[in-house]
């Protein structure tokens, strides 16, 4: 079918979420940009950039004028970026947190029933590899013996899910039990790719679970399949699509609202 997307995509699908989110964020960012930036200075900086570009065209046979105009374009661009930097400071933090959070829902798809996936356990030293054992709930079944990768201090199990639900996988080592949540679902769920022991910032960007307790196991990861969105006859990572759509929305709203960007 030659369509950008189907009508059902407009409601409660990952694509719909990305589109609506892009529109809302595009609008909010434009408003924030207008509020936090020096609109007059940005207007002047942009106009001067355009003037220097026109100078290149108007005086194209005078190489010294062209080169001077090019130098002014570089300086003008620097001035423009400096003016755009202040709004950028206001934007970068909330957007980063928003993307991290939305990524937990849209970055990967949950495991589906009968689909095999890997559970990877990393230990703090190679000696601990032999002590690690995997204890699965009844709904999950190991479909192959564990593979030890000493070079990476890692043990990998291939596992298959029988039922839909959220299950805890237990890893036993040195008498301690380490737990990791696995989600088996056909829809959109909040996923945590790994559970680990690491500083807060590092954990925040890749895990949605509490820190692992002290012991030989340093992380437990589940290989959820990455999600791609079909849009405009192409498969997209949601962040790339969000980038494109929010930019388009932003440029549309800035025209409507008469805001200099």
């Amino acid at each position, binding site marked *: 079918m030659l369509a950008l997307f189907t009508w059902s995509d407009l409601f409660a699908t990952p694509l719909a979420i990305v589109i609506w989110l892009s529109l809302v*964020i595009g609008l909010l*960012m*434009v408003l924030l*940009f207008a509020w936090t930036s020096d609109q007059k200075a940005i207007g*002047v900086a*942009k*106009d*001067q*950039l*355009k*003037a*220097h*570009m*026109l*100078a*290149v*065209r*108007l*005086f*194209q*046979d*005078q*190489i*010294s*004028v*062209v*080169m001077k105009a*090019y130098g002014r*374009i*570089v300086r003008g*661009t620097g001035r*423009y*970026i400096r003016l*755009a*930097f202040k*709004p*950028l*400071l*206001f*934007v*970068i*933090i909330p*957007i*980063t947190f928003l*993307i*991290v959070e939305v*990524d937990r829902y849209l970055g990967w798809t949950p495991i589906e029933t009968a689909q095999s996936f890997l559970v990877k356990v990393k230990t703090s030293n190679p000696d601990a590899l032999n002590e690690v054992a995997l204890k699965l709930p009844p709904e999950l079944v190991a479909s192959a013996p564990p593979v030890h990768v000493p070079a990476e201090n890692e043990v990998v199990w291939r596992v298959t899910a029988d039922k839909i639900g959220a299950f805890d996988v237990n890893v036993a080592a040195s008498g301690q039990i380490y737990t990791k949540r696995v989600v088996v679902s056909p829809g959109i769920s909040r996923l945590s790719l790994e559970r680990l022991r690491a500083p807060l*910032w590092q954990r925040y*960007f*890749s895990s949605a679970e509490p820190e692992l307790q002290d012991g030989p196991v340093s992380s437990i990861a589940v290989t959820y399949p990455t999600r791609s969105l079909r849009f405009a006859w192409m498969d997209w990572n949601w*962040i790339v699509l*969000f*980038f494109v759509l*929010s*930019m388009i*929305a*932003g*440029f549309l709203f800035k025209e409507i609202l*008469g805001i200099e*960007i």
Partner: protein
Amino acid sequence: MSRDGLKGSIGRVSRRLSVAALLAALLVIAFPVPSHAYAGPGAGFAVLSSFWTLFVAFLYSLYALFTWPFRHLWRSFRNRNAYGKAKFKRAVILGFDGMDPELAERFINEGKLPNMAKLREKGTFRRLRTTYPAISPVAWSTFMTGVNPGKHNIYDFLARDLSSYLPFLSSAEIKGPKRQLKIGKYVIPLGKPIIKGMRKGTPFWHWLAEAGIFCSVIRVPVTFPPEKFDGVLLSGMCVPDLKGSQGTFCFCTTRMSNDKYREGGVRVPMQRENGLLRSYIPGPEDPLDSTKELRVNFEVRPNGKTARIDVDGENFTLKVGEYSEWVPVKFKSALGMGAHGICRFYLKELAPEVGVYVTPVNIDPARPDLPISHPVTYSIYLSKLYGPYATLGLAEDTWALNEEVLDDDAFLAQCYQNHEDRERQLFDALEKTKKGLCACVFDTTDRVQHMFWRYLEEDHPAARGVPLAQKKEVIQDLYGRMDRLIGRVMEQVDDDTLLMVVSDHGFKSFARCVNLNAWLYENEYLALKEGKTESRDWFEDVDWSRTRAYTMGLNGLYLNLKGRERYGIVDPSEADALKQELSAKLNELVDPVSGKVGITGVFECDAVYRGPYVDNAPDLLVGYGGGYRASWDSVTGRVTPGVFEDNVKAWSGDHCIDPRLVPGVLFSNQKIAEEKPAIVDVAPTILQLFGLPLQKHFDGKAWKLAESA
């Protein structure tokens, strides 16, 4: 909390937020995670816009850089070294419209114009003979083409329609698009308006450009519509406003009056509503329905000694006696059509009555609806570089001062705002034209002298009752300002540059008006309809079946010639005799009040002009004496009782008189041998100095430099 206090608090909060955001951003940067590197559209805008600009500029300049040798080779081959025979690599011509040689000399001798004195001493200072008549569009057309008006077809601002005796602009004709779609009462234009330049002849910069010499031409009169050539040009005098007129201001006021302004302006009522005042700016006619006028509404909110004005999404606050910046306005029609303009607001009064003056709506140089430059992007370039600027040909609103809507100070402020824009444009052109021609005309000299001459004379009728000392220095200050401009240009001029300062005419007092139509009526050359003793504008009450001669415009006198004018009665075989009769009677016409000669010369156009367009010329040119000029009524074809009257308008100096009395100036940094140079000589002189052959049709002769004389 006061407005300033609130602003300060917001500023402090904003600064703290900025610091917090900066710290947070640094934290994010300190712990980078590649998959989350994108930080939203804000960053995207900044990166994408600037990157795109840089990228395009880079590509283009790369293209320009790499193709330059080939283009240079091609041009060298084609032009066989354009500057090979040139005496100078650059010519800079500063046109000071109306600079008077007598005043210049007086101020130089008083030591007030050091830069002009330097030019006089080391180079040249001469009186520059002007054209017949000494009117700017005529003289500047001759300046650029090197021919007499009989070859360039400009004889006045106005020309007459032979079938209706009505005037039309002599320099350009603007018509609607060729194709239109009519739906009921609506007419949808299918195309752009047709603009036809009426000035004939070829400006000398076209010959230079053809030879490969780059030219920057700024605001030379009668360059609208701009013609194509290999250079840049910004059109000057004769560019219309958005209404298509030569400048129509509007005065929005709560004062009740049914009076109409004689020329150049409209009065618009301002309505009060709960402390708010509403009015509008009249614009061009609706392109879909010519019976309607497009408008832009605005609101005024008085607040003590200031008022906030909201117009077209913009708002600004003005004090009484203050101008706004240029404000963009869009006159919207249906189907997304409309016109883009810019105007300035001036808060004239706030209590008890409210009055807002709005300048004529200029064509927006950043979005020109009509071409005002060549290439079209040149006006856009200047607007982006320095901001909006006046594009109207007669940008200084002399009518508003004449009608006492603006006072002297407001008018001067407007003149010098425009002048500063022009100076910036000149210096940009100088920077961009290291080789070639750079010509720029300044109108300020003309407008200020027109309006402030009254303060130079003890008994000028327009200054009676005004303390003379009040504005006595205005014209002297003007000359000083122009002198400083010359000084700054001289700093950028090397020995390999020819600098010329020229004016198209000088100036004299305009204290007494001569209504030539009244004289023609009194002497039975012009007849009025039965029972009439006067005629309204444009000969409304003239009986053409009994009229032998009439006048309109500033200097032209026309015979009502059979076979030429629609209701002509003068047989061509009698024309010469009639012309001689009129000349004899008008020459040495004496003002009965002062006893002075009001007309010092009457010239037969057949003798003064030669060329293919002589038929469009008036039959006689009337040269008024110093202190005299055609009356305001006579210019518009009105017949009033009495031939002579005082001129009490602010427009108190003029040059539309006997051309022998108002030569222009010629300054140069080179010694020019010619003792009696004329404005018609400029074009051939420039061509010769650049080593180009002179055109056979030129009427002027090239000057020799003193060293080679």
